């Protein structure tokens, strides 16, 4: 689409920069207006508007007349596009086209085809004045009077042009009007044209006669009536009659406006009347029999205006204001608020108590007679409008549910739908959309929260005695126990979210998610290291085991790949002897160890040694961290005790412990030296 518009833009630039090419470009764009795409339709309407408004140095005026004649069909087509932007531009283009073609026909009697088309365009555009096109109609006329003001203000321009061209003006050089058309023209019959223009003028005056005030349209009309007063003196009496009868006291407040808005509207239209009258008096356009009326009306509106001039108009109480009788439905919304039948059919105020009355409690015979009585009473027009609303709600709900596909369903004919219905049709819901990373994170943190809330729940003790041998081959959780939640949670982090690189898998992101769980467990542990040491030990054991198995698996797979995918027993043995790296385990156990070392008190000896003894694997680096404990006079005892414990019970780290002791023995703190030397002598 961007391509096409880009090409069109190029064509447009060419047209505006090359006077000779302009007509050709414009002619080539005409058929594009028939394109069903709104972007293109909008572009075309804008281009036509600009092209017909182009000055003579851009586009040859003689060529423009020919183009205008050819444009009529296209403009007629664009007027039918239900889009305000297209309609607005098309009206503007039509203003120029109408002038040119109308005058062309006036000069060229016998242009039957051209005249017929122009008449068609004129009738179509003028016929839209004071309608809601291109908007849909609302459920009341009153609402529609106040809607689509934007387009109606545009249409008024076109209507006034038609009135100007189809009525005679007093002979003034330069101004075109019916007076300049040959009275014996075979196509342009003055009587017919005048009658038509007169009818349009009646329509223009109509807005002043409405029982509500639509200020933008009323004030716009008054400025246009000044034009009529200047140009069409034969109609001035008709105009003044309407202006004279324009009485604010007889206007109602619309149901679609606040009382404040109505107060302002009265003030604003009053001023417009005053300006209109002053203007016509100034230019001596007021017919003699209306002089008095005009002067009286001016002094009336002037005094009314002066009265409120310096006052806060909104605060002035006016008990005479009455609302127009409401023809609509209290609940006329066309979008279904809730997906239930009650909201679908409810046209009364949703807060009305009556709506909660359960009609099914009534006996059927009473229900039937009630329904018949109600249907008899209902005005057909109102009933139809009510049904229209319900239909629209139904449609909007369908569209909201399954996207644009349903739009094509025609719901006009209910019977038709019944015929099309087949119980064999299988409906499938669209597959759920995959979560994005941010959503995954959000959900994971929710899951983690839920797990921790399980920690606080009281679970009755379950006695499930089993012999240890059998347990190894059994599933981890058979019945939900007090500690089951962290078994699941640790396994979620260590196994559930560990991913091998593969298609569509971002290892780093998976790792980030798993780290969210780890961090949560770690934070949980920190909140109470004394009672939660079991949890942390269980987790780190899981962590080490899972990482080792996973990395061994990876190593095995790599070997197998080099051996055409076959795994041999030798390979398994070889892998067993490999030192498989466990970086994740090391990272988190170091973190746990660090935090323990900074938190423990002299009395926490037991839990610290417990941690050291139960961690599945200790690196030299981890052991060396104990050194810092030994430097702290208050906790040196724990430090040495742990080193001694490790030397005695964890032979794999014995040498690492001895290294630490050596370092201490060679240090410069005498008390440490003494203790370290003592232990070194004993164990090395």
């Amino acid at each position: 689409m961007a391509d096409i518009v880009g090409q069109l833009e190029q064509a447009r630039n060419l047209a505006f920069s090359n006077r000779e090419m302009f007509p050709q470009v414009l002619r080539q764009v005409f058929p594009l207006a028939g394109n069903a795409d709104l972007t293109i339709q909008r572009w075309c309407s804008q281009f036509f508007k600009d092209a017909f408004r182009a000055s003579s140095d851009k586009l040859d005026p003689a060529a423009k007349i020919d183009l205008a004649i050819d444009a009529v069909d296209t403009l007629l087509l664009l007027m039918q596009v239900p889009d305000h932007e297209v309609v607005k531009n098309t009206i503007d283009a039509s203003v120029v086209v109408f002038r040119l073609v109308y005058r062309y026909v006036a000069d060229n009697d016998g242009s039957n085809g051209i005249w017929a088309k122009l008449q068609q365009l004129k009738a179509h555009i003028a016929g839209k004045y004071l309608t809601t096109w291109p908007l849909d109609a609302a459920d009341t006329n009153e609402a529609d009077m106040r809607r689509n003001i934007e387009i109606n203000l545009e249409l008024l321009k076109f209507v006034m042009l038609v009135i100007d061209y189809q009525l005679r003006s007093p002979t003034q050089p330069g101004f075109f009007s019916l007076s300049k058309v040959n009275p014996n023209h075979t196509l342009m019959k003055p009587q017919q044209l005048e009658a038509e223009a007169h009818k349009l003028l009646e329509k223009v005056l109509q807005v002043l006669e409405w029982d509500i005030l639509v200020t933008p349209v009323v004030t716009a009309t008054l400025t246009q009536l000044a034009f009529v007063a200047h140009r069409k003196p034969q109609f001035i009496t008709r105009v003044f009659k309407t202006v004279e009868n324009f009485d604010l006291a007889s206007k109602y407040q619309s149901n679609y406006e606040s009382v404040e808005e109505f107060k302002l509207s009265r003030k604003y239209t009053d001023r417009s009347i005053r300006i209109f009258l002053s203007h016509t008096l100034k230019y001596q356009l007021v017919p003699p029999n209306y002089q008095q009326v005009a002067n009286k009306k001016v002094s009336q509106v002037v005094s009314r205006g002066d009265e409120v001039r310096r006052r806060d108009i909104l605060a002035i109480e006016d008990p005479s204001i009455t609302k127009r009788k409401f023809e609509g439905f209290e609940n006329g919304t066309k979008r279904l608020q809730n997906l239930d039948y009650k909201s679908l059919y409810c046209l009364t105020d949703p807060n009305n108590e009556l709506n909660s009355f359960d009609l099914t409690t009534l006996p059927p015979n009473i229900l039937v007679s009630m329904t018949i009585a109600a249907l008899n009473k209902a005005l057909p027009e109102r009933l139809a409008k009510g049904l229209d609303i319900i239909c629209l709600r139904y449609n909007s709900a369908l569209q909201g549910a399954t996207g644009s596909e349903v739009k094509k369903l025609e719901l006009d004919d209910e019977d038709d739908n019944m015929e099309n219905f087949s119980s064999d049709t299988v409906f499938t819901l669209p597959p759920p959309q995959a979560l994005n990373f941010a959503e995954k994170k959000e959900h994971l943190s929710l899951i983690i929260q839920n797990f921790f809330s399980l920690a606080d729940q009281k679970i009755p003790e379950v006695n499930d005695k089993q012999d240890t041998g059998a347990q190894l081959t059994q599933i981890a959780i058979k019945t939900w126990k007090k500690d089951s939640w962290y078994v699941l949670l640790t396994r979620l982090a260590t196994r559930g979210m560990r991913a091998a690189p593969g298609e569509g898998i971002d290892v780093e992101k998976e790792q980030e998610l798993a780290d969210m769980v780890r961090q949560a467990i770690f934070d949980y542990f920190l909140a109470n290291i004394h009672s939660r040491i079991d949890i942390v030990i269980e987790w780190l054991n899981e962590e080490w085991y899972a990482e080792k198995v996973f990395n061994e698996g990876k190593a095995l797979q790599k070997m197998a790949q080099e051996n055409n995918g076959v795994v041999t027993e030798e390979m398994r043995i070889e892998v067993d002897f490999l030192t498989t790296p466990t970086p994740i385990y090391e990272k988190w156990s170091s973190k746990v160890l660090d935090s323990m070392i900074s938190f423990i008190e002299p009395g926490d000896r037991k839990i610290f040694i417990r941690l050291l003894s139960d961690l599945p694997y200790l690196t030299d680096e981890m052991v060396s961290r104990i050194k810092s404990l030994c430097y702290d006079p208050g906790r040196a005892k724990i430090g040495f005790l742990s080193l001694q414990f490790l030397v005695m019970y964890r032979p794999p780290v014995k040498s690492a412990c001895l290294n630490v002791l050596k370092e201490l023995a060679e240090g410069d703190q005498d008390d440490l030296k003494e203790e370290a030397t003592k232990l070194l002598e004993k164990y090395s």
Partner: protein
Amino acid sequence: MAIDSLKICTVCASNNNRSMESHKQLKDAGYDVKSFGTGSAVRLPGPLIDRPNVYEFGTPYEDIYNDLMSQEAHKMYESNGLIHMLNRNRHVKRAPEKWHANAYAGKFDLVITCEERCFDSVIDDLMYRLVNKEDADTEVKQVVHVVNVDIKDDNENAFIGAKGIVKLVTMIHEFKERAKEKRKNGSFEDESELLLEDNMMRILTEWQREHTHLQTLYGVAYY
């Protein structure tokens, strides 16, 4: 310009105080704005109440400034704010411009007058422009919203009034922005909600509720 601005102009009698203060504030807020006066000439206070300083439209603010400074009463002009006003004006634009001869400035979408007389004068003039000459074939009239915000002609009120005008203009533009957004998202029930013309009265009412000290007039015209 960051704002997708309507073409706006402000209008008072002499295009010096009220329309210029609003011009400045709207310009500072980023709007596309010009300003004009509807008086027959630029009238500024003189040494005595019956001896105003009168200049033709088009006389640069700079010249007016120098003229006032050269007068005997220049101390008085300094104390009554006249000098300050002209000093501001000459930094906003060159010279006061007359509404009735502003065809060169193009058409505006929104005209804001600062006095009821100016409002009348603008609409009356627009009515006259509809008929004073035959439309060129290329001419297509355009809708213009004319709003009057009544402001007393002194320094302080000009400032307060201009603030109110900026607020109104901002509300109108915010409405347009929201409408654009709603149209994009399809989040509207009735398209009429998105059209400025359909909602102009509602916006004015809302603004008036918060600015009870500034009285308004409004009308739609064409030119």
